[in-house]
């Protein structure tokens, strides 16, 4: 066989092999980076999924705490008012009874 032909064929094959190898290496590197990024995405998603119920629960507890604090303040005010009325020297049984009935009515619903 003519050695020129074998030279041309093997040269072309070597170019294909080297070029293809470099191309495949680039593709592999890109895929590796993409895989790592995808894995990070999955981890972030998982973390957010775990956190979400806790966030909702914290909001509920926040609201609950505000309501309880409001009620406590109302109760303290009420207590002070009643004590003042009872200790008043001019207090009568009828006036106290009226005060208690009214105080039960004007409590604002929370």
């Amino acid at each position: 066989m003519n050695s020129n032909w074998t030279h041309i064929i093997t040269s072309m094959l070597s170019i294909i092999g080297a070029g293809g190898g470099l191309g495949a290496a680039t593709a592999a590197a890109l895929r590796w980076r993409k895989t790592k990024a995808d894995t990070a995405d999955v981890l972030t998603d998982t973390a957010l999924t775990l956190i979400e119920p806790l966030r909702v629960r914290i909001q509920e507890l926040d609201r609950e705490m505000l309501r309880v604090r409001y009620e406590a303040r109302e109760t303290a005010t009420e207590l002070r008012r009643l004590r003042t009325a009872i200790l008043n020297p001019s207090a009568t049984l009828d006036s106290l009874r009226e005060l208690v009935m009214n105080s039960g009515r004007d409590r604002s619903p929370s």
Partner: protein
Amino acid sequence: MTPIRITSGRHPFEVVVLIAALVVATILILTNTRPPAVDAAMPGPVRLVWVILLAVSGVVGLLGVFWRGAIQTSLSIEAIAVLVLGTAAAMYTVGVVAFAGIDGAAAGGFVAAVGAGSWWRLTQIWGDLRRFDQAVKAQIIGEVTTLIGQRTNHE
């Protein structure tokens, strides 16, 4: 859900051929010799490229086949090696046939088989990676099992 079947590169034939490529390339580099068929059929620089391709295919191929990370990374590394190994085998086949003619039928035939097998494996890897990507895009990855070998990859 049907698991996606990925054909592993840890087949005895493939692993042994990759080891042989590495060993042969090491011997050729250390002793600074080349097969007569290579000297006869290839111009000077191409002989060097041939040895490098052989060494690269062995190292990268074994790295890819025994990669312990994601299966798609393993496959894409293996793809580099089988592409390069197929080319190196084709070059050597041309050399053997040109140098020995019909007397080199046995050697040329086996080397050509290695080249053909490598490129076959390359198309197989491309197919597996394409189906893997489609499954990821459609988010139907439940379980990826390998057809050959024991690796099971949960995604």
